[in-house]
């Protein structure tokens, strides 16, 4: 006997489904787990500012609660990569251009800051601004010829640029001291006040991260942001709608590079020693992994991506030799079950708008 004329569903899940339907007055046939995530996302979308501030508060309190060099250096690392990943997300996630040269811009910013501070005695804010400006300039110079090509071809060009930048760093002995690197880079000093404790360094990168996040969020919630999203979705239609596609690509590529340069300037001051090995192709891949793992076109995704990919290996240290196996396993599982990354498959702004619109319609009906 066929008991129901629907597709065969096993009894347990049928029961769950029934319970869910009874509990919720809304006409919904979604699975309870899925509905739980939907309502969680809606909650997040509605209280985005408050939740972001709560996370910021945790980040501010972290050095007070865990005032040990080891924890703070993990924190700095996470935020450094979060900054890099958010800036890469601007071109790769939001605009759809895969770039493999982010480590090069990090390096250009770092070398600019290192050279200016060791040779000319410059410090904050000059080294940070110069690092960002120099990386932005190189972004512009790389973009001018290369942003006319697309997709994987462009990815190869950016890869080539990354290698060129590293080779220059390695061989221009008089400027970069080649493989010996530059040492003795002074710590960040704010108008004579030197940031020397780990907690102070931690707060410097926290401020940079917050500024970059605010800037990217402001860009994406504007006319420029809509143009960027339009370019990602359909370049031909974007151009037909009056958007100067090449001009926007160039501008956004350069801004993204400048943010990476800013992070590079911090890196130079933080490490007090830099050499070309820190800005290799592997570094670019790591930044791209954080962005993809966290989620394309998601700022929160980039931050959680950095938190997972950079803090997880430390948390797994007790597993000694097995930790990298676990780490790789997490990456594979993630890409199989959530190919859009942790937070890449939804848009909180849209979820909020949809929820509010639904509510206003229900109100007008009743």
């Amino acid at each position, binding site marked *: 006997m066929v008991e129901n004329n629907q597709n065969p569903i096993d009894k347990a899940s049928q029961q769950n489904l029934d319970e869910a339907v009874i509990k919720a007055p809304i006409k919904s046939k979604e699975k309870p787990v899925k509905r739980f995530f939907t309502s969680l996302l809606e909650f997040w979308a509605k209280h985005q500012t408050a939740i972001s501030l709560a996370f910021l508060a945790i980040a501010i309190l972290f050095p007070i609660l865990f005032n040990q060099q080891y924890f703070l250096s993990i924190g700095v690392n996470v935020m450094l990569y979060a900054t890099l990943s958010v800036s890469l997300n601007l071109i790769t996630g939001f605009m759809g251009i895969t770039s493999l040269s982010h480590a090069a811009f990090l390096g250009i910013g770092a070398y600019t800051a290192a050279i200016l501070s060791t040779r000319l005695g410059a410090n904050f804010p000059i080294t940070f601004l110069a690092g960002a400006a120099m990386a932005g300039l190189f972004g512009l110079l790389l973009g001018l010829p290369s942003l006319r090509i697309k997709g994987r071809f462009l990815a190869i060009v950016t890869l080539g640029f990354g290698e060129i930048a590293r080779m220059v760093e390695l061989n221009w002995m008089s400027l970069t001291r080649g493989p010996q690197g530059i040492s003795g880079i002074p710590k960040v000093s704010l108008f004579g006040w030197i940031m020397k404790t780990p907690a102070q360094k931690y707060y410097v990168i926290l401020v940079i991260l917050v500024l970059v996040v605010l*800037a990217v969020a*402001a*860009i994406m*919630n*504007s*006319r*420029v*942001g*809509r*143009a960027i*999203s*339009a370019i*990602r*979705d*359909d370049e*031909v*239609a*974007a*151009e*037909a*709608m*009056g*958007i*100067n*596609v090449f001009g926007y690509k160039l*501008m956004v590529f350069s*801004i993204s590079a400048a943010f990476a340069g800013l992070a590079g300037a911090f890196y130079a001051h933080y490490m007090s020693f830099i050499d070309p090995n820190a800005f290799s192709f592997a570094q670019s891949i790591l930044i791209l992994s954080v962005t993809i793992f966290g989620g394309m*076109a998601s700022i929160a995704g980039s931050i959680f991506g950095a938190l997972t990919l950079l803090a997880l290996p430390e948390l797994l240290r007790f597993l000694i030799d097995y930790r990298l196996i676990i780490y790789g396993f997490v990456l594979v599982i993630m890409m199989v079950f959530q190919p859009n990354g942790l937070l890449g498959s939804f*848009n909180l702004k*849209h979820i909020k*708008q*949809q929820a509010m*619109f639904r509510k206003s319609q229900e109100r007008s009906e009743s």
Partner: protein
Amino acid sequence: MAEKILWANNVSQHFGGLVAVDQVSMELNKGEIVGIIGPNGAGKTTFFNDITGMYDPTEGQVFYRGKDITGKKPYEVTELGITRTFQNIRLFDRMTVIENVMVGVHSRTKANIVDSLFRLKNHKETEKKAHEKALSVLELTGLADFRYNYATSLPYGSQRKLEIARALAAEPEILLLDEPGAGMNEMETSQLIAFIRELRDLGYTILIIEHDMRVIMNICDRIYVLDHGKLIAQGKPSEIQSNPDVIEAYLGKEH
């Protein structure tokens, strides 16, 4: 006397040895609905691309209000006041309906990245204008209730309408519609006919490529017929229907 606003002068488009558009001249007067018809591969869309700057014509010029717009970039043509839709729907699929239309307002607003970073007055005015303009266009096209849905979640006919809405948001004087009725059912087609008439009454000048003869014969003031890239006939719908060259191009020669 009709006011001539768009004028193509002997436009040709060659792709290597292939002549896709061959010495085509046409003109468009203010307030007209003009149709371009022809069998598949006649060069209709290529001609559209030549007008809108997607291609650079091999020969000939395009003038808009006395100004040579040949070889201008597509975004410049849109800024001047000529906006198009696409034969194969090209919506921004990860953006909502209203965001799609707000992209259309791009060329009519001016907030730059500095305005937006510091949330200056220009940014606020732009956002306000984009939102209001998009809502009014969506109300005109009857899509306002779906404004926060994703563009690709709309039914096919509505997606076509959204393409037109997005083009209208750019405040064009001339609207180029590339097969707006493709794939529509009977009811959607008659709605489309009424809608295009409404647009003409609102003051838009319309150049339309269409295969559906019901649409073309119903709404066009004049028709140009292309075949193998050449202009083979032009005139009023009644003249075109009885033109032997057109019948031959569509149905083949009698032996």
